């Protein structure tokens, strides 16, 4: 069985607020040294998949550089295919349209099966049993789904199945979910079958050309037997500031639900050639991850410190995520702060103080008391910033920023 994996990497990630202003969601940093797309690519490597096409769209530049033609994932073989296919005809209208617009490429490779994956999720999964599941069920199309907490179900595409896992109904972000089985955005289709579906969907003017909203509900409505494969491992939809932060707090927990230390399932990433982190002048860390190139002179607690970041003397970083190449000045105090790349925080600045009030620009995005600084933000010494504030990429801040405030760049 020849499989072509198609990785949809066009996500804008609007609910990640200022972190995704100039960065596609798959390129967002995760776990100190990774980017979100590393997880799906590493899964492909470990699943022995050799045909990979990445379909970026929004802000593809950093993604293309990071992916480096698949070399860090050992995906470069004479027998394999690795392609990055940004829109070359028109903007992709939806996930199904992205595949439709690349029919020519897929036909050229002529796989038996297309495995559709998303670059927006953090999880470790062997795709081979999932691909076999299609044969087990003798189906032309299957998807992978996972149980989510019932109260979270309204955030997801929900799949309702019978006792044989045959899909009976789709509910897109339902207020009253009939099931807690969430669609993971992982699909396997016989290519000849998907090809027909895509041609048909492209002609349909009322379609939004999306797998979850159009293709799958249509298959169910015409009575095609399609099945849900249940995945029981850790799966994080890095869709919101809350889930992004919780994903990192999972990593610093004593027994993380996501195990990055499994020698059989390493997560690969673009190599950075940085020296090991050093702790000097009283620098220490507890319940934290500290990445290569970091210099820690202050105290890091329940936090993740990115590549090449500097935590100065007397600084305290608590329940925070520090993006790569950031600088936390002397005596600065950070509580529940997420920073993008290359953020400068001046000496004596305090962030995450006071009462949490709803964010004035996007109250649904900045929650859990977390203040988010976009990349290249610079905060002057001795500033004070409250909770649930958001600072736009490249903005310079000094003085007092109250909780819930949104600061734009000038």
């Amino acid at each position, binding site marked *: 069985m020849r499989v072509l994996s198609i990785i949809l990497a066009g996500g804008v990630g609007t609910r990640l607020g200022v972190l995704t202003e100039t960065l596609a969601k798959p390129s967002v940093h995760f*776990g*100190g*040294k990774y980017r979100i797309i590393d997880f799906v690519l590493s899964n492909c490597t470990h699943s022995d998949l050799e045909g990979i096409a990445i379909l970026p769209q929004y802000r593809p530049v950093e993604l293309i550089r990071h992916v480096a033609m698949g*070399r860090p994932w050992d995906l470069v073989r004479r027998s394999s295919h690795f392609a990055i296919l940004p829109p070359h005809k028109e903007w992709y209208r939806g996930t199904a349209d992205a595949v439709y617009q690349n029919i020519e490429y897929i036909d050229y490779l002529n796989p038996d099966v297309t495995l559709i994956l998303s670059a927006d999720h953090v999880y470790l999964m062997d795709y081979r049993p999932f691909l076999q599941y299609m044969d087990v069920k003798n189906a032309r199309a299957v998807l992978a789904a996972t149980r989510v907490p019932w109260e979270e179900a309204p955030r997801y595409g929900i799949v309702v199945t019978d006792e044989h896992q045959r899909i009976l109904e789709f509910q897109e972000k339902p207020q009253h979910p009939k099931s807690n089985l969430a669609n993971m955005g992982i699909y396997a289709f016989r290519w000849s079958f998907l090809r027909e579906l895509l041609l048909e969907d492209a002609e349909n003017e009322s379609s939004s050309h999306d797998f979850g909203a159009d293709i799958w509900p249509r298959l169910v409505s015409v009575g095609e037997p399609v099945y849900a494969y249940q995945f029981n491992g850790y799966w994080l939809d890095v869709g919101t500031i809350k889930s992004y932060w919780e994903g990192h707090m999972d990593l*610093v927990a*004593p027994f993380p639900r996501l195990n*990055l*230390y499994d020698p059989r399932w*390493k*997560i*690969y*990433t673009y*190599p950075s*050639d*940085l*020296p*090991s*982190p*050093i*702790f*000097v*002048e*009283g*620098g*220490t*860390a*507890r*319940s*934290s*991850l*500290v*990445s*290569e190139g970091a*210099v820690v002179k202050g105290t*890091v607690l329940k936090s*993740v*410190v990115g590549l090449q970041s500097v935590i100065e003397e007397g600084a305290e970083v608590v329940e925070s995520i520090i993006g790569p190449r950031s600088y936390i000045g002397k005596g600065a105090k950070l509580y529940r702060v997420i920073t993008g790349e290359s953020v400068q925080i001046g000496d004596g600045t305090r962030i995450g103080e006071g009462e949490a009030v709803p964010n004035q620009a996007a109250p649904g995005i900045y929650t859990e008391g977390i203040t988010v600084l976009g990349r290249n933000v610079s905060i002057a010494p001795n500033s004070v910033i409250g909770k649930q504030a958001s600072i736009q990429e490249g903005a310079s801040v000094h003085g007092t920023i109250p909780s819930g405030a949104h600061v734009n760049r000038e």
Partner: protein
Amino acid sequence: MEAFGFIFAQDWARSLEPLTSVRPVASLPVLGKYRAIDFPLSNMVRSGIVRIAVSLDPEANSLLDHLRIASQWDLDRKEGGLFVLPGKYLGTVDVLFKNIAFLKRAAEDIIFMVWGDCIHSLDYGDLLKFHVEKAADITYVGPSENPNVVVMNKYLLLEILFAYKDLRDFWRDVIATIRGDLHLEEYPKRVPMYRVSEGLDAFYRLHMDALDLSIYSKLTENLIMTKLRDFPPAKFTTTSRIHNSIISDGCIVGGHVINSVVGRNSVIKAGAYVENCILMQDVTVEEGARLVNVIADRYTTIRANREVVSNKIAIIPREHVV
């Protein structure tokens, strides 16, 4: 760059046994994540040298394994790249003389000779400029009796080789004999330089010096490349206490680490105490174990509650369980 590189990595260095009974000195693990040879290799590559030969003992399995994937130093090139030259060599003259074909065929005229145990981060481009500006026959860096880097024209080298092929050491025997006839220039030493083959003290001092951030930054500023192992960032648990130490990727630290360098993929469990130590890679220090002034080689395990406390440096050899 109009130069090619030659790294002498055939020596095992008796003075560092038992660390060097299992590997040549050029593949000695240093500073948590590197092997000594990463420094000369990376300095060359970062300075634009793309044709690099490494002479080594054919039994140097650890070094051969380390160099296996040339792309990790950007040396998988169509023109140039990494050339491994194995042999049972008698000395550096023998190394060069037996590989005259390589020297002759190299497209570049200037040769950079570096010993594989030299730890420094230096822009060899500046060094070449100096060599050309001084119109020197030979420019060297480091002690004049035993330099770390030697730069010269390969045709001059070939001439000298044919004339003195019966001597043993290129510098101490050949150049020492004829240096009066040559225009030698010493390149001013601007960066910290270490030579681990000098002995255990030098190896230990390198690591303790590196705990000074200004020295560590200077040693690694060239972004030294090494064999990738793709570990996650170092993790510190609720019980960890760290003081003045380097902790590498893949480590999980629950114990107390003071003035130490901890190599990749090591585990220091809760209640363990590590002071003034060098843990290479893949070392496990179990609960309540206590290590002071210890060099633990790769794949060693210190069992729970065991103590290795020493006034002078104690070595736990590779794969040993204490």
